[in-house]
């Protein structure tokens, strides 16, 4: 069974432990034609692209979809999806916006609900699930810890996270010393292309996107094999993961600031989708509190602004080089 999801707060370990295959959704091509009648103009481009792909059955290999997050676009995407009655069964997972004892408890409960739904579809027993989950967590912890440590030390630049690298790179690019190190903040869209573009412009890029740092990096991850496995997952994903925009802004700022200082990053390129409220608030918050140059680049769903992005990136490169 293939289980599609796109929210970085959804633990893929649960899907794997139900003997299903997690499919992280970031669809191509970036078309929205079929979604246009159902979602308004000032609306999240990623939601439109996802809906388009569901409606055109580009995801026909999916057997189940997990919608999640706490944003209005995610909720409406789910509402429209179920109203259009596509054949794929789905589930909405609430991701608490606050971090405290109550929200951890509720997240645990929500994960349990999701598990029960997947188990009933798979015809798997709770006991088998727990055994699977314990084994997967043993492995997952090592991967997450190694990857997080390597990334936070600055050893995983470019598209290393996207390629699933976990170890320190044996030798850094010989030209890296002449490059300007920056952090790329972005959502799901265009990430590989924008990394490539920035590298062509002589930047050393650290991927802080939804499909990079926000998905793979758990800076203070802890694990005990004997603890309740769903407690562990709740803790990892709600507390230990790098927060997405809008989730615990103070903690997000602290982690980014620590990373910037440790690596000596010189700037931030904030590549954000139009009409994403969380990102828009995050942008104003970071702009106020992070004291290194920040280049905001807005996109909708196309490469139509590529020329403009290039010009602004070139100008940003000059600003950073002259510092």
């Amino acid at each position, binding site marked *: 069974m293939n289980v599609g999801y796109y929210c970085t707060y959804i633990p893929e370990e649960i899907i794997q432990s139900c003997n299903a295959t997690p499919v992280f959704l970031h669809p191509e091509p970036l078309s929205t034609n079929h979604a246009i009648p159902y979602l*308004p103009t000032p609306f999240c481009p990623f939601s439109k692209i996802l809906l388009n792909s569901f409606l055109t059955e580009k995801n026909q290999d999916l057997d189940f979809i997990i919608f999640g997050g706490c944003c209005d676009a995610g909720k*409406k995407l789910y509402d429209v999806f179920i109203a259009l009655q596509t054949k794929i069964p789905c589930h909405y997972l*609430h991701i608490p*916006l606050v971090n405290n004892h109550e929200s951890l408890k*509720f997240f645990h409960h929500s994960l349990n609900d999701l598990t029960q739904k997947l188990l009933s579809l798979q015809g798997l027993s709770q006991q088998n699930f727990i055994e699977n989950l314990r084994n997967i967590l043993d492995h997952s912890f090592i991967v997450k810890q190694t990857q997080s440590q390597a990334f936070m030390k600055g050893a995983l630049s470019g598209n290393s996270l996207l390629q699933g690298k976990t170890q320190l790179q044996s030798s850094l690019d010989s030209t890296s010393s002449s490059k300007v190190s920056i952090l790329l903040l972005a959502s799901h869209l265009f990430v590989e292309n924008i990394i490539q573009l920035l590298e062509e412009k002589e930047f050393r890029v650290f991927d802080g996107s939804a499909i990079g740092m926000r998905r793979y990096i758990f800076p203070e991850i802890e694990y005990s094999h004997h603890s309740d496995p769903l407690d562990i997952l709740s803790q990892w994903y709600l507390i230990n993961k790098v927060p997405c925009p809008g989730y615990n802004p103070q903690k997000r700022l602290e982690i980014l600031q620590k990373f910037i200082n440790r690596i000596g990053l010189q700037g931030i390129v904030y590549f954000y989708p139009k009409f994403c*409220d969380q990102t*828009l608030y995050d942008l104003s918050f970071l702009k106020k509190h992070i004291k290194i140059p920040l280049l905001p680049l807005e996109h909708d769903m196309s490469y139509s602004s590529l020329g403009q992005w290039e010009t602004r990136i070139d100008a940003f490169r000059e600003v950073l080089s002259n510092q």
Partner: protein
Amino acid sequence: MKLKTSTALSLARFFANRKSLFHLLGIYECWLKKKFPEPNLPQISYQLTIKTVRELYSHSRPVIWSSLFFPCEIIHAAGAIPFYPEITVGLVAALGFQHFPLEFAEKNWYSQDLCSYHRAGVGMSLLKLFPRPDCLVATTSICRGTAGFFQSLADIWKIPCFLIDVPYQTTSEAIIYVKNQLSSITSQISSQFNCQFHWEDSFSLSNSTVKIIHQIEALRKQKNFAIQPPTKNLDYLPYYFQFLGSPSSKFFFEKFLEHLQKIENRSNKFHRLIWLHLKPFYPNQLTALLNENHFGVVYDEFASIFWEPLETEKPLESLAKKIISSQNLTVPEKRILRILDWCEQFQADGVIQFNQWGCRQSQGMNFLLKKTLQQKGYPVLLLDGDHIDKKFYSEEQLRTRIEAFLEILEG
């Protein structure tokens, strides 16, 4: 011109931060009471506004800022003064002052794609023109933008924000989750302000006010009855939200009911409409256009009672249910069912929603709303624009759309 604007803003900020000056408003209030021993409805509303301004700016008690759907009964029960920035920016817009805070927020990196209620609230806070809060409370039940807005306010005013996370689906666990969060927040408010919560007074006032609102609803169901001018009821939002659970709200609705009972029914035929979401608050031609085309608003979504009576025996559970019930306005399935019910009860001919540019949650369900209501035989008009930012207002477009809708209703 620029110099004049900045001088005016500096002066406004100077006066807004002089607590003692606002105590003087008390004298004005006494004078008003003497001059108008039997005040009419606008005078009642005006006097309550002056009193609130005095209390808020003179900081006579702790000031708690709240998001629109945070139950105000909690703040009244704590003896604090509630302030609803999302409502107050409506007043700022009505006074034609909104472009200052909107522009100031944009200069500080708050994009114009964000909800203008929030953007103007941020701008008024950055300009330090709103009364200084002692504490912020908000729920995520209506929209995600509220959380971003209140997190920004906490950062601007350097005070804590107590955010209640509300799950999208209503289950018994969700009620317990919200109740436990309320328990923690009320403990923190209690220790911060050294206060006790007097649930009985606040709940009793809230419940009795709701009964009066239901009487007003009963009047509005009459065939030839409509509040004039159309959408006027939305100007009374503070009494539906900010003052609910206080004597002010109850007093206002008693007088409002008396006022409505005296109104003679309209003899001429008009189109009975249900109004969804809010309306543009800056000076505009919407009301004139509605009147011109013989449209009457017989019910407004934001004036609807979506919760059960509050119970003093289990205050937090009752309030948790009220918070979760506000999803009657955001979960399409629940919202559309309620609208259909109103269409039937109020014998509506159609439905109008004035879209708010930055409101993802309401616009995100426009397709479902329109499709379902039209299937049931109720024409729907979705007007595009912005309630606070006049940049998105086009009178000609508004006229064309309203006239086209009239043709549909009469066709």
